[in-house]
């Protein structure tokens, strides 16, 4: 589905990604874990076309999308749920969702947006209750649901999630991750970037560990969960409990 080879990118002279490679197969959840400033978000934004590719290639469904505009990349079927949700605050929940389907209004007029709206409401009933409320008045968890719902409205082949758990209560994180898992079970492909490594690895099929712009480790979730370095650095276990 997605194949990234030797990707370099950054902001101006500041190079954040220094040769990242990864691949995502159809129907799996792949997670990228890493600390602050490791380049996780930069990676997703580069794939989404918000940051230009300096070197390397990004193949989406076999087609190079490096250097394309975000609009084209979304239309090709690759949607990003951005860090910090980025809800349209001054617009109603329903309008937020409809705008998510923007590319479909353009390409096929027959697209049944209404039934997708129902599907999103079915997934997050809370959004239906708040249908006419302004996006900016929702709680953090509801905004995250809305951001995911908005991305789904584009019917993406690949959905990228950037720190969906940020600033949310554990119970909400659990609910949202549960829905992400259900999406995978329904055949969707998901690339998940997280600081909450434990929660991410619990639902993911495979994972990568990124440090200062380079992939340092990759493996199945099982392998990463049991890896000593990962446990120490990202799962909050100290040397003692690992050696025991």
């Amino acid at each position: 589905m997605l194949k990234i080879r030797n990707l370099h990118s950054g902001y101006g002279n500041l190079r954040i990604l220094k040769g990242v490679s990864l691949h995502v197969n159809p129907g799996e959840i792949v997670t990228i874990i890493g600390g602050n400033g490791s380049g996780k978000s930069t990676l997703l934004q580069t794939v989404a076309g918000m940051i230009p590719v300096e070197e390397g290639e990004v193949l989406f469904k076999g087609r190079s999308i490096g250097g394309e505009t975000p609009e084209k990349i979304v239309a090709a079927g690759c949607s990003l749920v951005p860090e910090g949700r980025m809800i349209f605050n001054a617009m109603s929940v329903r309008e937020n969702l409809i705008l998510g389907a923007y590319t479909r209004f353009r390409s096929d007029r027959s697209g049944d947006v209404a039934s997708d709206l129902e599907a999103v409401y079915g997934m997050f009933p809370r959004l239906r209750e708040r249908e006419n409320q302004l996006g900016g008045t929702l709680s953090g968890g509801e905004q995250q649901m809305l951001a995911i719902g908005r991305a789904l409205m584009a019917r993406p082949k690949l959905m990228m999630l950037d720190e969906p758990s940020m600033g949310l209560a554990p119970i909400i994180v659990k609910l949202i991750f549960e829905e992400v898992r259900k999406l995978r079970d329904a055949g969707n492909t998901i690339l998940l970037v997280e600081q909450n490594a434990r929660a991410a690895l619990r639902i993911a099929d495979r994972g990568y560990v990124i440090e200062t712009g380079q992939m340092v480790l990759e493996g199945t979730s099982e392998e990463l969960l049991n890896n000593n370095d990962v446990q120490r650095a990202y799962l909050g276990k100290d040397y003692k409990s690992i050696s025991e």
Partner: protein
Amino acid sequence: MSFEQLLQYLLSGVTNGSIYAIVAIGFNIIYNTTGIINFAQGEFLMLGGMTAISLSPYVPLPLAILIAVIITAMVGAVVDFLIIRRLKKPTVLNMVIVTIGLSIIIREIALHLWDEKVRSLPYFTGNEVTSINILGAYISPQVLWVLGVSAVIVIFLGVFFKFTLTGRSMRACASNITAARLCGINTRNMVTISFMLSAAIGALAGCVISPITQTQYDCGTSLAIKGFAVAILGGLGNSTGAIIGGITIGLLEAFSISVLPLAYKDAIAISILLIILFLRPSGLLGKKEAVELKEF
């Protein structure tokens, strides 16, 4: 002050106020999609009025106005295509300076095309001396045209921004431009559309007011200043605020004549602009907490 006099002032205030409100709404449309103030907005009014005046001897008035609106919208698109799009670093300050320069260029071109003569469109219905008696106050039918067209523009924009995909997309750009791009919205095109829309609205307003205020190559400047004051008073980017602000300034101007010399009339808008900037920079309806919940 007699009742008739009061009503007369009231009507003239509301008329001028609604003209200012339309100019302010033109500012708001572009401000909301780009975050800049287009200081060439007044020139769009002048261009619309002038083009319609030049066409009116050859085609029926409604057609002349329609063509003028379309031509001005095209000018708006050209401005965006040739200048705004080309800016290497489109910072707010850069774009503001560019629009000021643009207003000077358009004015000079208009001076060459149409010389400095004062012209005007014919009255849409009746003529200079026709007047309608409303409860003892006399108004020109053109005033009703101004009020009616203003109302239609406001309603049209309300529907456009609330219910059409393009309108919603423009609001999305205003709300969060990054998220709009991530939804697949071509934000560059939205800027072009906003320039065309505000140019078209400006041109229409320029035509409707032409019989009352007259049109000259530099008539846009003073209207733009008042429209800007109104936009700030109502809260930048807020259409309801623009209407309230417009009518407030229009009424204050009208009633100022009874207590101040006529010459001070034009100072009212500027004084209010300064007072608002000192005391409440976010405007009447622009609540500080609601800056994030920006709404048209």
